[in-house]
């Protein structure tokens, strides 16, 4: 039987791994939604509507998970029996934490700059560069996925979460600046 026993990669007919072909993923996603989406069952029985809703929601969830580099990493860890506690876990790498502090200070300082958007944009180029380096490091860890490598992946994920939060806060700051326009 399909769906509820298969993992997200199997659902999309893709090999289990961190490196993912994004265009293929998007293509499979559209093919699957064409079959299960509630719009195909607008005139069907309540039962079929319910089933379609569940399936479509699951496929959306799977797509969302596989598309996002952090979610995908976390999901791969859970397939390997490691459940991360998103709220509680944090890195203890003091050099990394120090850098984070500096980046945050730079972001906060953008407010006072003559062109705050440009300052934020510059900062984001740097943050995005670091983030994609981390994506590369992650891919390596999942190639053979030894217990040590999985532990390393977990640590990278903790750091990626920091970067993600920083990106989020930068967007919030931009939104705040927009409001003030």
């Amino acid at each position, binding site marked *: 039987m399909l*769906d509820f026993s298969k993992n997200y990669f199997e659902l999309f007919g893709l090999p289990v791994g961190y490196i993912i072909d994004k265009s293929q993923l998007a293509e499979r996603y559209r093919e699957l939604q064409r079959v299960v989406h509630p*719009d195909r069952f607008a005139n069907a029985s309540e039962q079929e509507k319910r*089933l379609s809703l569940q399936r479509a929601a699951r496929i959306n969830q799977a797509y969302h998970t596989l598309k996002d580099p952090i979610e995908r990493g976390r999901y791969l860890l859970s397939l390997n029996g490691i459940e991360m506690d998103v709220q509680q876990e944090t890195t203890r790498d003091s050099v990394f934490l120090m850098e984070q502090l500096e980046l945050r200070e730079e972001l906060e300082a953008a407010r006072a700059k003559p062109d705050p958007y440009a300052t934020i944009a510059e900062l984001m180029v740097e943050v995005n560069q670091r983030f994609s380096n981390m994506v590369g490091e992650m891919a390596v860890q999942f190639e053979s996925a030894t217990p040590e490598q999985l532990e390393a992946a977990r640590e990278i994920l903790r750091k990626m979460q920091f970067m993600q939060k920083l990106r989020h806060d930068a967007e919030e700051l931009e939104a705040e600046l927009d409001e003030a326009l």
Partner: protein
Amino acid sequence: MALLQLSEPGKSQAPHQQRLAAGIDLGTTNSLVASVRSGVAETLPDTEGRHLLPSVVRYTGDQRIVGHAARSAAVSDPLNTIVSIKRMLGRSIDELNSLGSLPSYHFTHQESAVPRIQTLAGAVSPVEVSAEILRVLVQRAEETLGGPLEGVVITVPAYFDDAQRQATKDAARLAGVHVLRLLNEPTAAAVAYGLDTGSEGVHAVYDLGGGTFDISILRLNRGVFEVLSTGGDSALGGDDFDRVLARWIMQQAGLSDDVDHTMQRRLMRDACAAKEALSSAGSVQLAVELPSGDCWRGELTRVQFEQLIMPLVRKTLTPCRRALRDAGLSVADIADVVLVGGSTRVPLVRILVSDFFASPALGEIDPDRVVAIGAALQADVLIGNKPLDEMLLLDVNPLSLGIETMGGLVEKIIPRNTTIPVARAQEFTTFKDGQSAMAVHVVQGERELVSDCRSLARFELRGIPPMVAGAARIKVTFSVDADGLLGVEAREESTGVTASVEIKPAYGLSDAEIGAMLRDSMVYAEQDMAARRLREQQVEAERVIEALQAALASDGDELLNSEERASIDASLSKLVDLSERNDPAQIKAAIEGLEKQCESYVQRRMNANVRKAMSGHSVEEFK
């Protein structure tokens, strides 16, 4: 016993079975109905050739007048003539007050959270007023198309929240029309353009109507419309242009703020006319009859007008920026901007929007009609007149959904711009030993404090088995369906006890209230309640029978063994038989029985279809 009619496998329905469906744009200022006829989607005019139906309802002692005639009375009979009702749909009086644009009606005091307007015909709610407009549109479509509509697609601003969507659906229910889907207005506009031009790529849809503003960013890829992000302001529109203009006229003419209702309406009407004239003219002459009997005369140039509305138009660009950010895109990624809504006729709007997106603005399809046309195209697909794989819409939820946690903070469970349908689960635990119930407060909005968000529902989980504090694991699943409506399910995980969930709509109508309105409207329409109930069940039975027959014809032999098939066939013919008799309760029971019986078959079908869709991939690529 009636014989089952089975069509040949793989053959679509015969042409005479073309089903009647329509798309309805239920607008703040004007509404429209459109349908696909001979392959072309077009809006349907009334007997006098007018396509737009003013969204105005006038209540006199024994009559309800909808449309042009009602609008003409808006000035002379302001308290019984309801305009811009869409702004009030799904909102409480307090909210309307805080929006600062509470229309000048007499509101009645009541226990229900839904505002009711006092008219000559009694107190009416926004849902009832909207239902009157829907009735007229449905009737127009049925007369034009020559038969009852089997379903409609109604458009809503993408930025409508749960309560506003629910209220729209309630209005349709009250008008007695089957809703195939609520469709977001910008998505509908994109459909209208996309199917004509087949243009792939990323598009922005800028929709400035009478009372609402929406921006959507979407990607079109081989017939799939994927909404990437959406944003807007559900209380900003062309009416606000009229309002600033009316205020300007009042200042110029030396009128004080406390002019009466009639004067207010007259000023709004004059302001609107001046705004429309300035879309082509460089200046307009104004004349206002003052209470003193004198007449004030003045001139307004387009430049002056543009200065007045500039802050409002600028205000629409903030959600545009946010929508781009949410989509992870920049202006350079946008191929073009589709303009929707009558207010995009204002030249300043076109210029600022085109500049902002640095892209050409598309407006070939009449901006007033484009949404209804898109809705008609989608209705045609959903009702089954078109091959289903031709077009697919993947929409998003416009606002984040969350719950209240300790200290009045919001824990987001489904962030905004998540593709729908979606289901997300969250685990809760008990705070005290032996606690058997817990209260959950669901809110919608982007802010961190509960008090800054929209309260959607409060519910209690009851029947939690007694345990020590923190031991119970209660999994609450929040879901948003394809119409953008919220659902909640709760379950205690360690014992499997399903806790009862009671959703109390914060600003919506309760089922009992809708029931009462339905009864009232029945009396009004002089229809027999029993006859209607029977007809409803018969229509439902027809739907189930047709769907099942089509399913059996295509894969019944493949997926069912002879025993299962025989038993389903028997129940099916029993339902066919019952549906021609006149006992609604029996028909209902037979439908439910048949659906239960088909449960496993339905699952097998869906799985088979998914396998088919994925076949050719897994084999060679997944070794």
